[in-house]
């Protein structure tokens, strides 16, 4: 369960107060992009709220120590608007970085899971190019494929469906929803965007507007 209780933070004009049940799909519509970034940073423990509390499954991320925070972040999949890549690593290295760093999988297993994940998202481009050569759609495909490798229970999509053509948007949203659907009650998906229209294809259980209005 994600719980924002009377949260005040720099970069956000209003007080955030909402809760999101485990297993649900929700949209948070912000008034501008910086608000989306701040909410993601609050959820991942990069920022502590000035007032109020942010809780993810009973954990206050910003109070965790470094090692616990790293473990917590492994349980969250984040698709940043630009993919969130390391610019000097190629597509394959970026894709498998988390799994390889985790150290729990053998090389052959990493290769197999990586290829399967790419197949799932439908990426057909080169694996040896640097991320700045990719289109915005490809970046998000790879970012999603990377998240799939860790099978996180919570997925955060930061402006993931913005700036795409209609067909790309529909392809990506069906992928994201399929992943959510496969997890049953276990998987929670949170779409954070400053452009409400991008949530049209998502059947959200809750849409929270940082300006105030909430639709269920």
């Amino acid at each position, binding site marked *: 369960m994600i719980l924002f209780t009377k949260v005040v933070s720099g970069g956000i004009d209003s007080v955030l107060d909402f809760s999101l049940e485990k297993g649900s799909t929700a949209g948070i519509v912000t008034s501008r992009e910086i608000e989306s970034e701040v909410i993601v940073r609050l959820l991942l423990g990069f920022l502590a709220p000035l007032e109020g509390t942010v809780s993810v499954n009973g954990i206050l991320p910003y109070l965790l120590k470094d090692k616990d925070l790293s473990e917590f972040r492994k349980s969250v999949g984040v698709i940043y608007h630009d993919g969130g890549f*390391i610019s000097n690593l190629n597509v394959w290295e970026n894709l498998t970085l988390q799994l390889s760093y985790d150290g729990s999988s053998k090389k052959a297993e990493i290769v197999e899971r990586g290829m399967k994940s790419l197949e799932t998202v439908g990426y057909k481009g080169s694996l040896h190019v640097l991320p700045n050569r990719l289109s915005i759609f490809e970046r998000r495909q790879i970012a999603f494929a990377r998240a799939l490798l860790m099978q996180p229970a919570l997925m955060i999509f930061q402006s993931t469906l913005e700036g795409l053509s209609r067909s790309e948007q529909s392809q990506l949203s069906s992928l994201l929803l399929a992943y959510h659907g496969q997890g049953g009650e276990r998987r929670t998906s949170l779409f954070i965007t400053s452009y409400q229209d991008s949530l049209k294809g998502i059947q959200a259980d809750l849409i929270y507007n940082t300006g105030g209005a909430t639709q269920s």
Partner: protein
Amino acid sequence: MVSHLGRSALAAYITIADLITLFATVFRGLIDTIVHGRRSVAQVCMRQVFFTGNEAFKVVFVISIAVGIAIISQMSNVTDAGRGSLIGKVFVWVVIREIAPLITALVVIARSGSAIAIELGQMKLKGEIEYLETLGIQGEQYLLMPRVLGVGVALFILNVYFNLIAVSSGLLVSWLGWQIPLSHIKQGIISVLTLRELLISSSKSLLFGFVIAALGCNAGLRVGDSITQIPQAGTKSVIHSLVIVFILDVLVSFTFIF
């Protein structure tokens, strides 16, 4: 004047404190990497060895030949050609103990120290360090430890190459140019080249490598929100490394003398 001195002393203190903290972080990261077998960290470390060692080799190769020839030329002019054994001894004392670790360190400061600072500065400015941490990867373990170890190992290897090439080129030129018997020089080298001399040279190169990389990382990670801070980080890393490497050189030499 007093306030200026105070500010400089404070800045030096902060840099040294940062350096100690960074080394502690690297050490913690090293243990964790060994225990958990972090393949990706080992990969970054190998890349750093390649980038620093292999790509600096050409420069070190040319400089080491030039230094070998220059030292032999000067020594042959100062002493007469019959004193080949003294030339050999001077080679060990001057080249192996002092010049090789210092010059290879200068090459690495210019190439890799500033490059590390700029690379990490750019990563920080573009939010890539936060992206890494989002994946549950501890930035200091993935970014700092392999760079510090990688540059240390690379500098150690470069130092070995420098010594071998400088001594060989010196021997060759003295034999061809001044007809000094090789056996005389060799005898001089062997008489003073003890394990202690090799230890001084090696420990200097390893230490310099660790410090150069650590200062580069420190400067890069201190980049804030402005792109103009990136070249400043590169410059800062070079200046700090130069000062600290020369100070360390004196300290290590004194430690082994007394």
